[in-house]
């Protein structure tokens, strides 16, 4: 039976319409479930997008670009009607095709039956990132920790040690907690401040916490045989932030939206570069420098 479910992530509301047999695959979304029939409490934000999940194939599309990461290929393209398509392939096998409306307000995921959960998670991440790009929101590739009511994000290329550094905070910085290990969301506010949010997407670490905090700082990590932290300003800060946000930048509207968010972050949020070892001193140096 098809069931509609509503979720709120980073103060954005979205909907999934899927057969209830898919629900066991969506435990990571549970903390974000929203009962739209409830009228008490916080006012409900407007619907950002909805995803319809179905079985089957699509008849073909034109490929534009493909990116490969950790055994997974995402191929971007468009249908004859110019609707964006994303195909998810694992080890050469297609898990599904996501077909979106040009404004990313609606998507349909056609599942092949292979790697169903990955296809679902990828589709929701893509729709979330694209549909929210023009609202001062960005889905990061980062680890996020909290300390004393503020959130801090660690950026870096895959394999740099974002999770490791977040783990060192948890181990050696009393009172710190993991907000998200792989894909936190950020929203910039009109006054230049920003909030960081936990999401249902957290890579290999099951950390699906519905938490948020004012963003206190962003740290780009590099591996080094020593620990050293320096402040990045202006274009340096912008250049540190941009590669950690995935988006379809060849879609001008999305590129403009992401640029606004990235520029606001580079202008108003402290950005740092940490050359580090995977040790306690790195976490302490980072904490002492960025939490002032």
């Amino acid at each position, binding site marked *: 039976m098809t069931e509609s479910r509503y979720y709120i992530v980073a103060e954005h509301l979205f909907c999934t319409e899927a057969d209830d047999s898919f629900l066991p695959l969506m435990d990571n979304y549970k903390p974000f479930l929203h009962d739209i029939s409830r009228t008490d409490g916080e006012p409900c934000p407007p619907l950002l997008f909805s995803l319809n999940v179905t079985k089957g194939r699509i008849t073909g599309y034109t490929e*534009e*670009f493909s990116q490969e990461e950790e055994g997974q290929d995402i191929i971007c393209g468009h249908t004859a009607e110019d609707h964006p398509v994303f195909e998810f392939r694992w080890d050469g096998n297609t898990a599904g095709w996501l077909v979106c409306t040009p404004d990313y307000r609606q998507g349909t995921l056609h599942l092949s039956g292979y790697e169903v959960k990955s296809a679902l998670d990828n589709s929701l991440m893509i729709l979330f990132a694209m549909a929210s790009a023009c609202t001062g929101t960005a889905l990061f590739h980062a680890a996020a920790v909290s300390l004393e009511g503020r959130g801090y994000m660690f950026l870096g290329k895959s394999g740099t040690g974002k999770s490791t550094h977040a783990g060192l905070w948890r181990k050696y910085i009393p009172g710190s907690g993991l907000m998200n290990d792989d894909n936190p969301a950020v929203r910039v506010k009109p006054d230049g401040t920003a909030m960081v949010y936990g999401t249902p997407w957290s890579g290999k670490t099951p950390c699906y916490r519905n938490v948020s905090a004012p963003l206190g700082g962003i740290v780009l990590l590099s591996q080094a045989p020593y620990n050293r932290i320096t402040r990045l*300003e*202006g*274009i340096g*800060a*912008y*250049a540190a932030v*941009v590669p950690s946000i995935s988006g379809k*930048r*060849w879609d*001008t509207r999305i*590129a403009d939206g992401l*640029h606004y968010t990235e*520029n606001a972050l*580079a*202008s108003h949020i402290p950005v740092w570069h940490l050359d580090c070892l995977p040790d306690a001193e790195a976490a302490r140096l980072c904490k002492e420098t960025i939490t002032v």
Partner: protein
Amino acid sequence: MKIKKGFVLRQVCGENVIVGEGLDAINFGRMLCLNETAAWIWKKAQDTGDFTVESLTQALCQEYDVTPEQALNDVKETIDNWIGIGVIE
């Protein structure tokens, strides 16, 4: 000459920066900072579509109070730099 597809002039923290955003420029992987004159030349080149050193020099002279020699030097230097980096063709 013309600016290659996919390159965009952005204002980053008050400065002019060229970034690669289009499909043809997605692997540019760097940011190019422009001073005010270079940014003006970029916008002019973008608006013109197909440009020459002469057409940009003439436009620069009309906009700014510079000698034709100075304008020609500025445009040549800027364009040579952009050819070297690969943002125009």
